[in-house]
C-alpha cells in the first residue's frame, strides 16, 4: 500500500515552463466533431515547432469511451486535431506532448456541460 501511495503520484511535468493555450471550436462545444487547436510556446513566447502532440478526450464519469487523436501542425507551434465528443456532459481534454528536445508536456482542460447541437 505504501508503494501504491508513493508510486501513484502523477508523473512530474518536465516542461512546466511551456505555455499551452487552447482553442476549441465550436465555442461553446457541442456533441459531435470538435476542433481543438493548441499553441505551444516557450518562456520567451516563441512557438515550439515539430512537437509530437496527442489529444485525448475523456468524460468525467468513469467507464465512458475516450476519444483519441494525433494532432498535425497547422502553423508554427499550433497543433490541431478533431475529436468526436460522443456524449453530453463534462469532458476533460488531456494533452500529451513530446518536445523536440525530448521533454514532455502534460496539460488538461475541462469542457463542461457539453450538449447536443
Amino acid at each position, binding site marked *: 500500500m505504501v508503494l501504491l501511495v508513493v508510486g501513484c503520484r502523477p508523473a512530474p511535468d518536465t516542461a512546466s515552463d511551456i505555455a499551452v493555450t487552447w482553442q476549441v471550436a465550436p465555442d461553446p462545444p457541442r456533441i459531435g466533431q470538435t476542433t481543438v487547436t493548441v499553441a505551444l510556446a516557450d518562456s520567451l513566447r516563441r512557438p515550439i515547432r515539430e512537437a509530437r502532440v496527442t489529444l485525448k478526450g475523456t468524460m468525467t464519469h468513469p467507464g465512458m469511451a*475516450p476519444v483519441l487523436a494525433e494532432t498535425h501542425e497547422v502553423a508554427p507551434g499550433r497543433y490541431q486535431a478533431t475529436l468526436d465528443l460522443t456524449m453530453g456532459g463534462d469532458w476533460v481534454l488531456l494533452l500529451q506532448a513530446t518536445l523536440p528536445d525530448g521533454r514532455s508536456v502534460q496539460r488538461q482542460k475541462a469542457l463542461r456541460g457539453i*450538449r447536443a447541437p
Partner: protein
Amino acid sequence: MNAEPATETVPASPGLDLLRVPVIGRFLQWRRSRRVMQAVLLLVALAMIVHGFWGPQLASRNLATLLTWVHYRGVLVLVLLVAGNLFCMACPFMLPRDLARRFFKPVLKWPRRLRNKGFAVVWFIGVLFAYELFDLWGSPWWTAWLIVGYFSAALLVDALFKNASFCKYVCPIGQFNFVASTLSPLEVKVRDHDTCASCRTLDCIKGTRAEEDNTLVLQRGCELALFQPAKTGNMDCTFCLDCVYACPHDNIAIATRLPGSELWEDPRRSGIGRFSTRTDLAVLALLFTFGALLNAFGMVSPVYAVQAWLAERMGTTAEAPVLGTLFLLALVVEPLLLIGGAAYLTRRVTGSSEKLLSVTTRFAYALIPLGFGVWLSHYSFHLLTGLWTFVPVVQQVLLDLGIPLFGSPMWHLTGVPQELVLPLEFGFLSLGALGSLLVAYRIAARDHPERPVAAFVPWAVLSFMLWLAALWLLNQPMEMRGTFLGS
C-alpha cells in the same frame, strides 16, 4: 379486503444445492471460505482507497471511481440476478469488525425503537443524495472517503452493538442487496424440516460454545436472528453461512428456488415477521424502486432542465435545496400519489374497508422486480460499455510503481458497444415489468380471492406506467455533468 392472515406456506424441498456441487460446494463448506473472499475484496478496497486519495483525480483514471461506480455496481446486480447475495457474503467491511471483536466485545443491544428499516432507509436516501450532490461518480477523493466511511461505520456500530446490527439495521448496500435478493435464484434454507423438528440444540441460531468454557464461542449462529426452520426467503440474509457451519446435522443448503416467489408468500418469517405488516419494509421496497428511477434520471439530459426550472421557481442557485426538492418529489410525493392511488382503487373495486396503508404495505413488494429491472439496466450498461476500462488504469498504476508487467496503458480500451447493450437493457426492464405483474397478481389472488383481477388491475396499470417511464429514461441522451446550472 378479506383481511385474514395468509395461510402459512408449506416448505418445499430444496432444489439444486450449491453446497453439493463439486468444487464450489467444497469451497463454501470450508469455514475459511468467507474469510478468503473478504480478504480479497479488502485488498481491492484498500487499493481503491489509496488510489482515490493519492492517485490521479480524474475519475476515468482512478481505481476508486472506476471500480466502484462502473465495475462493482454492475457486477453486484448481475450476481444478485444469477446467484444471490454473494457480495454480503464477501463483504470486506466485516473483516476489521470481526478482528476488533476479538478484543472488544459489544455490550449494547440495538435500540428496540430502531429495530426496523427506518434508520437504514434514511442512510439509503443519504447515500443516493450524496452521490448526486457531491458528484461522487466523478470524484476519486470523495469516493475514497465514502469507502472509508463505510468501514468506519461498520466498525463503530458493531463495536457498540451486539450481533450484526450494522448489516440488519444500517448498511445501505446491505438493504439494497436484501431487497434485490428477493429475486435471486438461490436461498439459504433447510434441507429437511423433520431433522430441524427433532433438533434440541438450535445451533443455527444459538451457535456453539466450548463445553469447558461457555463464554467461548466456537461457531456463531445467525447474527441477524434468522432461525432456519422459520426462515423464508432472502430478506436480511447476508449469506454468511454461519448457520451452515453451526448446524450439527448438515441440514442447511444453498438451494435454488423460484425467484421472486417470496414476494407473494406471507408467512411469519423468523427475525422479520410478516411482510404484510412491515410498513418499514414496504417503504424500503418503494425506495428501492423509485430510487432506481431517480438515480437513472440523474444521468440524462432532461434532469438539467428540471433542475433549472426548480432553481428559478425557488429563487436559488444553490444545488442542495434544488436537489432536495427533486428527491422529495421523486421519493415521497410521487410514490404517495401513485401508490396511494393504486391502493385506493384496489380498495374501491374490491369493496374492502381495509386501511389504505395496509393495502399499500401488502402490494408495495410487487414493484420490486420492476425496480430491480431498472437498477440492472442502468448498472449493467455502465459495466458492459466500460468493461475493460480498468485495464489501462491498472497498467498505469503498475508503470508508476516501476512494474512494466503489462506494457503501456491501452487507453483506447472500452467495452461492449452501446448498440449491443441497449437490447439487453430493454430486456432487463421488460423482465422486471413482467415480474411485477406476476407478483402483483399473486398478491391480489392471495388477498382478494373473490375478485383477484379487479384487485390486480390498478397495480398492473401502475407497473405499466413505471415501465414506460423507465423506457423513456432509457431512450434519453446521457449527460453526466458535475456542474450545477452550468456553473
